[in-house]
């Protein structure tokens, strides 16, 4: 494999990691903590959406993120011919 395609593979990887990290921070630090007052108007079972994200939603999103990253990278590995 040429250095050029290694670079392209790595760039694509860093890009998808960055996008995932933004979502990761948004659901936990964002919805769960800092932006909670902004979401206070959205009721969820006796409390508000921010509370739900802090105690349930962020964890569920984390799982989705990892499995999304996994299948994205499996595709990327094949595309660049770097799979094992």
């Amino acid at each position, binding site marked *: 494999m040429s250095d050029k395609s290694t670079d392209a593979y790595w760039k694509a990887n860093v890009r998808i990691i960055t996008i995932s990290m933004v979502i990761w921070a948004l659901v936990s630090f964002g919805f769960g903590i800092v932006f909670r007052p902004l979401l206070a108007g959205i009721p969820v079972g006796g409390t508000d959406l921010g*509370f739900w994200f802090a105690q349930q939603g962020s964890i569920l999103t984390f799982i989705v993120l990892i499995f999304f990253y996994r299948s994205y990278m499996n595709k990327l590995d094949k595309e660049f011919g770097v799979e094992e």
Partner: protein
Amino acid sequence: MDQFIINLIFVGGSFALYIGIAIWARAGTTSDFYAASRGVNPVVNGAATAADWMSAASFISMAGLIAAVGYGNSTFLMGWTGGYVLLAMLLAPYLRKFGRFTVPDFIGDRFYSQTARVVAVISLLVMSITYVIGQMTGAGVAFSRFLEVDNTTGLFIASGVVFCYAVLGGMKGITYTQLAQYCVLIVAYTIPAVFISLQLTGNPIPQLGLFSTHTGSGEPLLQTLNSVLMDLGFNDYTGNHGSTFNMVLFTMSLMIGTAGLPHVIIRFFTVPRVADARTSAGWALVFIALLYTVAPAVGAMARLNIITTLWPQGIEGEPLAFENKPDWMLNWERTGLLRFEDKNGDGLIQYYNEANPPARAIEEGWEGNEMVLFNNDILVLANPEIAQLPGWVIGLIAAGGLAAALSTAAGLLLAISSAISHDLIKSVINPAISEKGELLAARISMAFAIALATYLGLNPPGFAAQVVALAFGLAAASLFPAIMMGIFSKKMNSTGAIVGMLVGLLSTVLYIFTYLGWFFIPGTNMLPNTQDNWILGISPLSFGTVGAILNFAAAYITLALTKEAPAEIQELVESIRVPKGAGAAVDH
């Protein structure tokens, strides 16, 4: 049947299972011992990782911590799960590709420096040994409460069982025992939660029950909880009563600390392929989430149950009388973790917030809160008794608590013994050691680590609780940034990495000691541990994030002033970045 016999059957049965697995999965090579020959199915590895990760703190303490504070302690839920996203994307696949056995192995080779390796070994030993103390004391509590043996006997039994499967089987034995332990602990945690959720809300799924209607009051469960707490003068459960800034920093410290814990990282060396490391991190989080999404429900529901036990006719009615205390209160009073005191001598238990007493307390002249001690660790263990569930559920909880403590202890002991036999003896002291000699050294250091852990469990330093904060702070401030830069910054050189690790390590230790006392000795702190005295309002427990930032900054400044890493190291980093060519076990 007597409760003691039931507990004995559950605990004894689970222990027999673990020892059976140990005999079946004996380790014959160092690759077996350190990494289970990289032959572990990613889903199995996910479950083993979950058991390894979920310690006595997750199983016994976490729901109690959430129950005590409410929303503010959501930090533990987000922090201890968010770290797996970092592991899956930033660390695990590349470390698996690198194909060595330990974390100091990676740091030593990537930064081509024995000094870097030794700094990593020291961080690892401090973290893992402090962590192990907590597991052994947790196992001791579970033993003394459920098996009615004294703490010492309990600890010796626990050490004996761990010795069997950890020394015999190494990572191979530990992995398959952890799989069994995961099953025991998740069943033990979920069953009482399902029963309690059904009782309170009619919904069998605790994650949904938490947001459902409370059948007793017809109002949403969380609103009911908020209003009874406020009637007693406490803060409401769902509100934010702390500093948002520290909540963010603390969550972040737990996340990067989790990703930097060596006993978690080494689990990803056991899977066959790089792609499996990603899959395995996902499954680990699924298995962890099964407990972590139930925990907030357990916390809120148990808090409500305890209040209704103490105020059976509501806050305006007559409180529980001392002579009517249920059995679980009497049992836990004997352990010293729960205490009542009839301050006004009326034979009734008035439980309320004496710092902010409700109107009725002043009118009737109550003389203070009479549930004077409720240790958070009781909550999960006493939960089935509080909800009046059948005896076998209590036996299950006992086995589950021990599974959680022992599985984590075994993982930590493996990290400790491999750091000694592989990173110190094989890499630094005697590189000529034979495979057989190294395996023997690994087993001896494992036995030594178990003896040390038992000793520390029997004589726990008074500061055990604070030390866990130190373990996370160190992982966040020293190992995580070093590993990440090793992968993502091709040019990072050895001087930069060493300076970074030392800056992260020392700043974190100094900040914690300044407020909590030198080596946690009470009275030696230089500043009082209150928010006004913290620099920029940063709590010592949240400092790991700052330490990590300082580590990155110091490393990049040093890199700018020194020569970048040599060409062959940069090539090594490029090869780590692509999955192709990951071999089986590679030794050097």
